[in-house]
């Protein structure tokens, strides 16, 4: 029995959580005269397993001490080994708090997880890490910006940390991986569970070329209570947090608040004041968050990266003429209906244009990859 297994056994006890384990370890360590229990985990943990019940009751409240007693009886040595073997077989790595590969950044927060479960290559945490977070239900603008940040950060060699959720999180992580960068997904369920299921493809990508991390045991199902806890890990693992799009009072807001508490840099992407999905970001900005003008600027502000140079704007519109130019001018990142584009074009055009002409040209632009059809007859500029 080594320290890892003893810790695993403690965590396997039903009704014993982070707080109880922390209490036990600290109390026992003081009694043993050890200043920092993390330096001598084995001794402390062995002592805890041997602790007489009266002592446990002194340290833990009644319910927890009962749970501890039950757990000590039920979780035999064999069961612990069996659990360990299962994890090894499914490629899950168990890293307790005193483990050499346990992310050191997590130790800075007030309530670090006692252990994390990891799938994939955790070394990507050694690189600079930036969290890109935002709403699950996002606008076209949000997904555009998320893609843009994910790609740029990935190219710059920064690890994109996020929650692998639908919407902004997933889009940014996918873009980072596609750009050849690294990404780390912090899950609110077991690392062998794919949630949300529609992100299955990203889940596999992260396993192969990124990393998945969770404080929950494998096979744990996602539940609403897990996500705020997960958010503290996202912000703790990152050097800075970029909020792409968030409504007022959202999970993203919680993460941003946690990041501020943890003393991380928070950036927010400004949006139109009329967009409810940008309200959260704009509020953050008014409270003094950094303005995320562009990925390059954010990188420069964070690390003074020489990457930053004035971007030569390649104006794709410059070469265009006539109706094509008018249409490209009318198009925007937010989707517009054909009707609206037609209206804008016809007010600017010298000769009268017909709706069918405009439609044909837009489709041509879509085909050339300059525009994008978002919905049946909604179009936007493509990045």
């Amino acid at each position, binding site marked *: 029995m080594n320290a890892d297994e003893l810790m695993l056994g403690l965590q396997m006890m039903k009704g014993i959580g982070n707080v109880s384990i922390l209490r036990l370890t600290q109390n026992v360590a003081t009694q043993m005269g050890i200043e920092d229990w993390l330096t001598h985990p084995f001794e402390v943990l062995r002592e805890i397993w041997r602790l007489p019940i009266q002592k446990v009751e002194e340290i833990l409240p009644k319910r927890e001490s009962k749970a501890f007693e039950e757990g000590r009886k039920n979780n035999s040595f064999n069961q612990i080994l069996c659990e360990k073997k299962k994890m090894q077989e499914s490629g899950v790595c168990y890293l307790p708090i005193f483990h050499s590969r346990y992310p050191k950044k997590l130790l800075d927060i007030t309530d670090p997880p006692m252990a994390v479960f990891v799938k994939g290559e955790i070394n990507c945490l050694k690189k600079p890490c930036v969290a890109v977070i935002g709403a699950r239900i996002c606008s076209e603008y949000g*997904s555009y910006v998320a893609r843009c940040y994910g790609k740029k950060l990935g190219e710059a060699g920064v690890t994109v940390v996020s929650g692998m959720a639908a919407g902004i999180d997933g889009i940014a992580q996918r873009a980072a991986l596609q750009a050849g960068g690294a990404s780390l997904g912090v899950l609110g369920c077991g690392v062998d569970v794919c949630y949300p299921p529609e992100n299955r493809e990203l889940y596999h990508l992260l396993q192969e070329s990124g990393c998945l991390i969770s404080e929950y045991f494998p096979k744990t199902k996602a539940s609403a209570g897990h996500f705020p806890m997960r958010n503290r890990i996202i912000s703790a693992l990152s050097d800075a947090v970029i909020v792409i799009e968030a409504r007022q009072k959202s999970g993203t807001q919680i993460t941003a608040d946690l990041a501020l508490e943890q003393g991380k840099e928070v950036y927010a992407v400004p949006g139109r004041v009329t967009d409810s999905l940008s309200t959260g970001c704009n509020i953050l900005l008014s409270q003094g968050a950094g303005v995320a003008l562009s990925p390059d600027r954010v990188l420069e502000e964070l690390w003074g990266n020489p990457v930053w140079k004035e971007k030569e704007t390649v104006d794709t519109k410059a070469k265009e003429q006539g109706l094509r130019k008018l249409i490209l001018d009318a198009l925007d990142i937010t989707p517009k209906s*054909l*009707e609206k584009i037609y209206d804008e074009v016809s007010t600017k055009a010298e000769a009268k244009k017909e709706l069918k002409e405009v439609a044909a040209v837009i489709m041509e632009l879509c*085909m050339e990859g300059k525009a994008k059809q*978002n*919905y*049946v007859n909604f179009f936007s500029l493509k990045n």
Partner: protein
Amino acid sequence: MYSTILSAACHGIDSYLVNVEVDASTGLPGFDMVGSLASEVKEARERVRVSLKNSGIKIPPVRVTVNLSPANVHKGGSGFDLPIAIGILCALEKIKPDCVKDILLLGELGLDGKVRKVKGILPIVMEAKARGICKCIIPMDNYPEAIQVDGMEVYGVSELLETLEYLQCSVKEQKELQCKQRSGLTKKRIMLPKESELDFSQLIGQEHAKRAAMIAAAGHHHLLLSGPPGSGKTMLAKRITTILPSLKSDESLEVSKIYSIAGLLTEESPLIQVPPFYNPHHTISPVAFAGGGKNPVPGMISLAHKGILFLDELPEFRREVLEILRQPLEDRKIHISRSSGSYCYPASFLLVGAMNPCPCGYYPDRNRCTCSEQEVKKYAGKISGPILDRIDLRIYTNRIMPGELLQEREGLSSSQMKEKVIRARKIQEMRFESQSHYNGEMNTDEIKKYCVLSDELHGLVEKLYQSLNLSARSYGKMLKVARTIADLEGEPIIKKEHLMEAGMYQEWQGGI
């Protein structure tokens, strides 16, 4: 004595002649009816007996036996009362057998001796004419629809005694009576269908949706409108009838036949001349939708024959109701098999569906819509693939801002659009050498034959495919729509812009 009277009954949309054989003989007095009868036909016994009595005709106590032949076909409907009554009188030698020879009789009797209207007169009279019968006596209420069939001597009666009087007249007198009746009605009849108050110019903005509606009407392409609440989907759909060409005479008769069987023809409109418009509520039952029932009647989809079937809030319809559409959309008719027999009703309608893009209705406007992508997909998924397969055009209607409502804007009016539609339909008539075959109904071979693309366009289609992430099934649909757009423009061959526009109406398969 024994007598035979000619009558008829409906089976599905078609009808068949029935011989009403009556025998009156001595024996224990009684009234028996045989010949595979439905309960309403069996009840004729009481109606006939009382009706004869109340008309002042005395029936001696004899044994009456009635047989409706062919005896192996199940007969329903209330139209046999009058022929049975006349048959009895004939068997009792109160009418000469020659008087009723080759005359088709039909009508329901009331206890007071009145003759009441029956369903399905039009198809019956048409069938009689086809069988070489040229004289018929029918209820007065059904008179306007019966005279729609040319070359048939029709006499409408409202009382049993009136029928007797007519039958006992000489041929010359009968002719006079007929002429008198007809001249009395023609005056009433020349009422043209009311000019519709609906017009496309009442629609503000929505020019692209109007164009899609025009393409749908021109090429008989089924149309699916999606859009937020209050964006004019229903308004648009209701106005599509105003740009459809009015029915041709054979089409009109065919549609009227269905209405006759359903008992929906009125004195004011004995013939359906404008394409019908039906919008069933989404709680409709499968039987009401497809037709059927104990006494089979045409369903909504058949009533919308040659017209528009508008299904508002498409995803809210019950799944089994929507799945009924599969066969009619393919074969343009519906087969209904019940224990009483199998029936076939025509159902060649233009399907116009309307739906919200998501449960809250505002997707893709993310300021208002809080539905997840999952929810949006689930909502759209309520309409099964095979149904979507058969819908050629998809369009999104925009929400109109209050400011736009006040703006003066000129838009196409119904008459302008109808003109274009008629022109495009003429081109199609020449192409298919048929009166009722349109671009939207082309099969794979016809697509190959009539939607020829140049080599350059072939490359373009492939590109369009990839960039729009179109599905394989969209290919044929896109070509068909492109063909109709070209027809609307009067172009003999499909050009690039036609194809591009057609591509826009396709079901779009995008992700986030």
